[in-house]
């Protein structure tokens, strides 16, 4: 068996290269299934080893949030240590109770953390993010989501608090970003908000879990819905991350394979055309087109999630 037969059609039978054979395709499929299974298993037996290494800065998230507000003609929100503390408590609680939601399994809600930090609010909201690589990706992801964007661009908010905390969630090493917004109750009274607005923010708990799937009212502006929207983070990681970052490893392996298949199919097309032989086989162009779409989708995926 010649090496060239792995890459080029057979010179006599004109069969496809070995690397494009059914067996090879089955091996690729098996490889990706095993890769996925390996990462899942590793997270179960060695929690906290695999995951995303982030370099997110608290001050940078605040700065970028204010840039977005100013772009939309709103005043910047000022950092409040009480909201920072509330955000940090929320992040710690998420790791302790191992959940990814606005409401904890034990029934704790965002408003409890804010009140608990000594910040009495008339308006408050919360955005969550995890597994992003960079600060700008977090804010970009929130801005791409209607409800999170509404939170960031809520004209009532005066203060902001951010917590960035690393830990292990569901066996996976991750970085949580908790963003709390608020308006102190005395300021809001001075602004004379409508009674309905104040009431709606103070009673999210009464609505129960069902409220989590409802769209938040503009006055509440709290992204309490559990509609995870997964957003992209670009690859800015080094090769050393490949061993511990399953997302990056999967992405690199996937893109390499798709590119390799693309080249092999192109070679096959070229050689068969040059030989001017007729062969009953699947067509090359749809293969190339599908591989391109897959590569594009894979390239644009990210481990980052917002809630």
């Amino acid at each position, binding site marked *: 068996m010649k090496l060239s037969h792995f890459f080029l059609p057979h010179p006599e039978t004109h069969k496809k290269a070995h690397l494009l054979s*059914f067996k090879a*395709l*089955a091996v*690729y*499929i098996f490889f*990706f*299934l095993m*890769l*996925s299974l390996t*990462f*899942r298993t590793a*997270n179960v037996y060695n929690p906290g080893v695999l995951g995303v290494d982030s370099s997110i800065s608290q001050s940078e998230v605040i700065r970028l949030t204010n840039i977005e507000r100013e772009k939309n003609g709103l005043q910047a929100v000022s950092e409040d240590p009480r909201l920072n503390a509330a955000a940090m408590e929320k992040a710690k609680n998420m790791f302790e109770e191992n959940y990814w939601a606005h409401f904890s399994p034990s029934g704790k809600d965002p408003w409890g953390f804010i009140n608990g930090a000594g910040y009495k609010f008339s308006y408050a909201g919360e955005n969550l993010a995890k597994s992003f690589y960079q600060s700008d990706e977090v804010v*970009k*992801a929130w801005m*791409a989501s209607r409800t999170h964007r509404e939170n960031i661009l809520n004209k009532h908010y005066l203060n902001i608090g951010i917590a960035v905390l690393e830990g292990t969630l569901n066996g996976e090493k991750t970085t949580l970003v908790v963003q709390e917004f608020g308006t102190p109750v005395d300021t809001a009274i001075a602004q004379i908000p409508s009674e309905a607005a104040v009431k709606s923010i103070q009673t999210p708990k009464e609505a129960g879990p069902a409220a989590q799937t409802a769209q938040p009212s503009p006055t509440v502006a709290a992204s309490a819905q559990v509609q995870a*929207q*997964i*957003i*992209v983070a670009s690859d800015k990681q080094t090769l050393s991350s490949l061993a511990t970052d*399953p*997302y990056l490893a*999967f*992405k690199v392996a*996937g893109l390499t*394979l*798709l590119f390799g*298949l693309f080249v092999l199919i192109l070679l096959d097309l070229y050689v068969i055309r040059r030989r001017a032989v007729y062969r*009953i*086989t*699947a*067509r090359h*162009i*749809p*293969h190339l*087109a*599908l*591989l*391109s*779409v*897959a590569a*594009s*989708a*894979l*390239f*644009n*995926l*990210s481990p980052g999630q917002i809630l």
Partner: protein
Amino acid sequence: MRIKTATYKLFSHIFLLISLILIFFSFLYKDWNVHQYEIISLAVAIYLGSSMIYHYFDKTLTLEVGLEYVLIGLLAFLVVFGVAI
């Protein structure tokens, strides 16, 4: 017969056009994994459908041909969805 031939041969080009549109949307919704999953699902479905129709009318739809499409479709699907570990 000529119309029929022209119609099914359209399928050889239609997926290429759709792919270009899907790639455009993939980059347009770069920050949305959900849309990336939708895009690859739609691409695989159209790829399989249009290819099967083409080969059926071309009278070249054999088990080997069908299997090749299915395997490549499955691989493309798995590579994209597998990353959502």
